C-alpha cells in the first residue's frame, strides 16, 4: 500500500480548508483559513507545494480566473477537491474519528 492513500497532517488541513471555502479557495484564503484555525504561521510556499502534491495525487484540481476588472487586478488560481479528493477526505476523517473513538482527548 503506497503512502499516497493516507493524508499527511498538513495535506489534511489544506483539504479541509478547500472543503470549507468551496468556491473561494485560492492561495490567500486557504493560507489565512489554516493560519487562523490552527494559530500556526503558515507560509504561502508550503500551501502551494502541498496543493501541487495533492494535484499530483489527483485529489485537487484548479482553474485560473481572469484578472479582476480593477486597476492592477490580479489573476487567481482557484482550487477545489476532485471526486477522489472528496472521497479521500471523508475516508481520512472517518478513519481519524474511528481511531479517536473512546479516547479521553475529545473536548
Amino acid at each position, binding site marked *: 500500500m503506497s503512502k499516497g492513500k493516507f493524508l499527511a497532517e498538513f495535506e489534511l488541513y489544506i483539504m479541509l480548508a478547500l472543503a470549507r471555502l468551496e468556491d473561494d479557495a485560492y*492561495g490567500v484564503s486557504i*493560507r489565512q483559513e489554516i493560519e487562523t484555525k490552527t494559530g500556526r504561521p503558515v507560509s*504561502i*510556499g*508550503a500551501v502551494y507545494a502541498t496543493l501541487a502534491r495533492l494535484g499530483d495525487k489527483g485529489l485537487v484540481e484548479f482553474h*485560473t480566473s481572469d484578472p479582476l476588472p480593477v486597476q492592477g487586478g490580479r489573476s487567481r488560481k482557484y482550487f477545489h477537491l476532485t471526486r477522489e479528493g472528496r472521497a479521500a477526505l471523508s475516508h481520512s476523517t472517518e478513519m481519524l474519528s474511528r481511531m479517536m473513538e473512546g479516547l479521553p482527548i475529545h473536548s
Partner: protein
Amino acid sequence: MTPPRIPRLLLGAVVDPAERRYVLSDLEEEYEALSAARGRDVANRWYWSQALRSVPPSLGRRLRRRRRSRWPDRRWRGHALLGSLIQDARYAIRGFRRTPGFTVVALVTLMIGIGASTAIFTVVNAVLIRPLPFSDPDQLVRVREMRLEGNTLSPYVSPPNFVDWREQNTTFSYMSVVSGASFVLTSEQGVERVRGMSVSPEFFPLIGVQVARGRPFRPEEGDSDESRVVILSHGFWQRWFGGDPTALGKTLTLDDHGYRVVGVLPPGFRFLEPADLWTPFAIPAENRTDGMRGARYLEVLARIKPGVTLEQAQQQMDALARRLEGRPNNAGWGIALRTLHEDMVQEHRRALLLVLGAVGFVMLIVCANVANLVLARSTRRLKESALRSALGASRTRLFRQMLTESLLLAVTGGVLGVVVAQWTIAPLIRLAPTVIPRLDGVRLDGAVLGFSVGVSLLTGLLFSLVPTLLASRAEPGLFLRVAGTGVGRRRQRLRATLIVAEVALSMVLLIGAGLMTRSFVRLRGVDPGFAFENIMTASLGLPASRYESAERQSAFYARLLEDLAALDGVESVGATTNLPMSGSRMTFGYRIEGRPEDAADGRLVAEYHATSADYFRTMHIEFTSGRTFTAAESGGRTKAVVINQTLARRRFPGSTPVGERITVVSQGGPTSREIVGVIADVKHAGPASSPREEVYVPLGDDPWRFATIVLDVRGPEGGLREAIQARLSAIDPALPLSSAQPMRQLIAGWLAPLRFQMLLVGLFAVVALALAGVGIYGVIAYIVGARTNEIGVRMALGAGSGKIFRLFLGQGMALAGLGAALGLVGALALSRLVRSLLFDVTPYDPMTFLSITGVVLLVAGVASYLPARRATRVDAVSALKTE
C-alpha cells in the same frame, strides 16, 4: 505600495515557474491589506518571513518533482549528474540536521561575515562604483584653476577666464557654471527659504537632461542678471502648483523680484544636491573685465567632446592656459580637469576602501573558522567516508559530496547574510557622515547580489578546499585505521595553522582600530582657538534689491546685533562673513606698506574676514597683542585691520606688527589699513588644519550681503532660534534665517568621518577577535578531547593536574603568541595604508601596539583556559577504559 524587492526576487526564484505568478500575486494582495491595516514596516517584516519560510517547501517540491521525472526521461546526459548532485544535497541537509551545533555555529559565522561584507560593499558600490546617473558620465569633468607652483588646486575659476575658455576651447561640447543658490520665496503664505541652483544656460544640454515641460534657458539669458526666469524641479512644481500645467508663464517672487516660470524638469532629476528652483547664472559685462581675473569663485563643469579622452582634453586645455597666461593675474596659473565622479568621491575613496579591506579581513577569519569547524566535523566522519570509499564510492564522488556540503553551507550563509545586510544598511547610513556623497543611492541591487553570491561561493570553495583535499587524498584502508583513534596529526597541524592566521588577522584589524581611536581622541582634544560650547550660530543673507548700498547693510547689522545682545541669557553677540569650520572662506591679496618687493601682483594672499568688534569676545578668541576695533573703526571713519599670529610671525618676524600698515584688497578695491591687533590662530578649516594667514576688517566698514551671527549663550538653547527669528522679523519681516545651529554641531561634523571609520573598523576588529577566540577555544577543546587517553595515561603515571593544565594552556598561548607576532609584523607592513587617515599619531604608535597585544593574549588566555581546565578534570580510570 509594492512589496520589498529582495524577498520578492528570492520567492520568484524558488517557486515552481508555473505557479510563480499566482504565488506572488496572492502574497501581494495580503501584503497590501496588511500594509494598509498595520503599516509598512509590519507588512515588510511579514513579507520577508513569508518569503524565507517558503524556501524549504518550494525547493523541496521542485527537487522531488525533478527526481521523479528523471528516470523515465533521459533526454539530457546532464541529468544523471544532476540527480547525484541532488542526492548529495539531500544527504548534506540530513547531515546538517544531525549536527545542529555545528550547523548553527557555521551559519551564524558565515552570516556575520557575508552580511558585513555585503553591507559595506553596498555603500562602496553606490559611492565609488556605480556610474553617475547622467548620460556618458565619464565625459563630465570639473574644471578648475591650478597654481602651477606646488600644483595647488583652487576650487574655482574667475569669470573672465571662464568666458575665455568657453569661447576658445576646442575640447568641450559644453561648459557651465554651477552654483548653489538660495532664494527667499515670498507669497501670500509668508516667506520661506528655498534651495536652488544657478547654472549657465548650457547646463541642461551639458548634463543631458531635457525639460519635461516648457523650455530650457536661452543662451542670452546667461548674459545679464535681468532675465528673471526660473525652471522648477518636478517636486516643487507638484508641491507649489499641484502639478498644474498652467504654472508655465506664472511668476514667483524670489528675493523680491518676479521670476517667470519657463520650464519644469523631469521627475527624479537632481544634480548633486536637491534643488527646488533653477535660475540662469549670468556673467554680466562688468564681471568679464581683466580686473576680475584674480577673483576665482565660479564652480565650473564641462562635457568633453565624444571621442576625446581626458588626457587629450587636459593637453588641449594646458595649451589654452599657456596662451592666456599673459593676461593680468593669470601668471603662474594653469587649468586642471578631473572627472566629476572622481572629484566627488576622491577624498572618501581611501576611507571606504579601508573599511572594505577590514571587512575582507573579517571574511578571511570567517573562512578560517568555518574551515576549522568543517575539518573537525570531517575528522569525526572519517569512518563514514572510509565506509563509502570501501563500498566503491570513487574519490571524485566523495570529493564532490564534501564540496556540495561546503557550498550548500556557504550559499545558505550567503542568503542569511544578505538578509542581515538589508537590515544593517539603514542604520549604517544614519551613522555615516553626511559629507560622503551619493549615500541616498545606497541600496541592494544586482551588482550587490552578484557580489554576495560571488563572496559566498568563494568562501565555500576556500573553506572546503583544505579539508576536502585532505579527505580524498587518503586511502580507504587508512581511513578505517585512523578513524578508530580519531586523530590525524596533519589535521591538527592544519587547524593550528588556521588559528595562527586568525589571530594574526584580528591583530592587524585591532591595531588599525586602535590607531584610529587614538587619532579620534587626539582630534577631539584639539583646541580650535575659539570656544564652541554655548555658542549658537545663525546665518542670513540680505537680498540685493533692498540692501543695495553699504550704508543700508551696515545699519542693518548694527541694529540686529544690538537687538540680539538684549536677548535673555545672551552674554555677547558678534557677526562674521566666514565662520570657522563652516567651509566658507574668502581670500584676497594684501601688501605690506613700505616694502616695495611685496608690491608684485598677487604675491601675498590672506583669508579675509569682515567681523563685528565683539566677534572676538563672543567666540573667546584671544588677542596676543593690541585690541579689537573701536567704534570709529567699525564705522569706517578710520581704517583698521586685525591679523592673526601666523601672518604676524611670517611677515613681521621678531617685531610687533601693531601700528604697521598693510593694504588689503576687498570688494571695494585696495584700502590702506593700520594693524590694531593680533589674535591667536584659529583652526578655520577644521581641527586638523594648519592655520593660514588671516586678516579681519570691521564688518561695518566693509559690509557683505551675507553673514553669520554668533551668540555666546548662557542658559538653555531651546527657543533661541525662534527668539532670533523674532528679532530679525521685527527689523525686516521678509527675511528668513537660513540656518541656525550650535557651534558644537559644526565641530562634530568635522569629526564625523573619522568617527565613522573608527566605529566600523573597531566593530569588525571586535568581531574578528571574538571569532579568533572561538577558534582557539574550539581547537584546544578538540585537542583535549582527542587526547583524553593520553591525559589519563599521564595522570596514572603521576602527572599533577597543574602540569596538565599548563600543558594545554601553553598550547593555546603558543598559538596565540605566534599569531600575535605575525600580526604585529603585518600591522607594521600595512600601517602606511592608514597613515593618511591618522591625526597626530604615528602608524607605529607603541602604546597601541602594546595594549592590543595584551588584549589579544588575554582573550587567547581565556579561550584556552576553559578547555585546559576541563583537561584537569579528566578521570584517569575512565579515560583509560575508553582505550
